[in-house]
């Protein structure tokens, strides 16, 4: 087949385009970090999830070990059912506890896992039994004010 100058330029163009796509995928995007494909799924029931969003990170000791897949309302137990995917490299004991934490004062919310001491590990489809809800600022302030008022009443 005779090669023309057009072929050369189309080759240059397509190479540049594919290189740009690859750069976007590898350098800009998070293709190399915890992906949605490899891992096992665990559930957690939370009283209140605050501002937790799907795709938020699941961290243990500050290291990202997984992501939130979905959040749904469980109308049997009236709690929030959070589905998490944990990277398959990391194993956690069965009595691991999960709490909803905030990074920084105004940062995003994430799920923090604290490992327990059980000898068996969490498997695909297991439920994290020990959970701690997000801190809701209004409730906290309410409790504080209520406590203050009770204190004041007792002193008089």
């Amino acid at each position, binding site marked *: 087949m005779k090669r023309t100058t057009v072929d050369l330029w189309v080759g240059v163009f397509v190479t540049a385009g594919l290189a740009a796509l690859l750069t976007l995928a590898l350098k800009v995007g998070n*293709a190399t970090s915890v992906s949605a494909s490899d891992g096992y799924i665990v559930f957690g029931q939370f009283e209140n999830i605050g501002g937790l969003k799907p795709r938020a990170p699941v961290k243990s000791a500050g290291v990202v070990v997984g992501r939130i897949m979905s959040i749904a309302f469980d109308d049997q137990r009236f709690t929030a059912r959070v589905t998490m995917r944990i990277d398959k490299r990391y194993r956690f004991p069965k009595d691991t506890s999960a709490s909803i934490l905030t990074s920084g004062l105004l940062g995003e919310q994430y799920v923090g896992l604290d490992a327990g001491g059980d000898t068996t590990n969490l498997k695909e489809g297991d439920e994290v039994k020990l959970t701690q809800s997000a801190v809701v600022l209004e409730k906290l302030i309410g409790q504080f004010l209520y406590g203050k008022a009770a204190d004041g009443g007792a002193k008089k």
Partner: protein
Amino acid sequence: MIAALDRGLRQVGHIVIDAIWKLGAASRFSWLVLARSSESVRRPQLTLNEIFFTGALSLIIIIVSGLFVGLVLGLQGYETLKRYGSAEALGTLVALALVRELGPVVSALLFASRAGSAITAKIGIMKATEQLSAMEMMAVDPFARVLSPIFWGGVISMPLLAAIFSALGVFGGYLIGVVIIGVDSGAFWSQMQANVDLREDILNGIIKSAVFGVAVTLIALFEGYDAPPTAEGVSYAVTRTVVTSALAVLALDFVLTSFMFTGV
């Protein structure tokens, strides 16, 4: 009084009916282009030539404008983020703005004015000088031989151009932010990588640009094919191509964005 009102009403009715008529013709035209595209696959040289014409020749304008848009985003983003003490988020801002919106939209607008206008002029003049009719006389289908290779060339070129635009824009943001202003390089890249998702952001951006490619190329082809066979007719058709595709791109962008980036 009554006569003037009557004339006005008639005119409005005429414009509406004309627009609907044109829309119907455009839909049938698009269908014909799609239905006769087997020739573009069987003779890849035809499509390749069009990729050269619409894609490779648009490289320079895309590279230069991508770089400058990235530079401006870097400067403006830094100035704003600095006030909140979060200049490290510059990478996220630049990358998300480019990959989600500016890359697909601006490169589609440039594509419409650089390649779309050329397509309309080419088809319009082929029609005016009866080259398309001559092809039909020789039992060569102009849809299969001329129009659908142009269509596929545009559809293939557009996502590649948008990707090049976004990648160079990110590089431009890096140049301003990290090299010149001095934002920490590690924070710039790691914040970007933590917040840009491969599927949610990059893939959706590519889908967007492919949709824009389809819209712009079809509008350009149809306006050329529909143009009155006069010098004036072709010149009006070129203007209409640029205006209509710019509006179509912006409207489609709104629709696609509201589908893709809400809910989460």
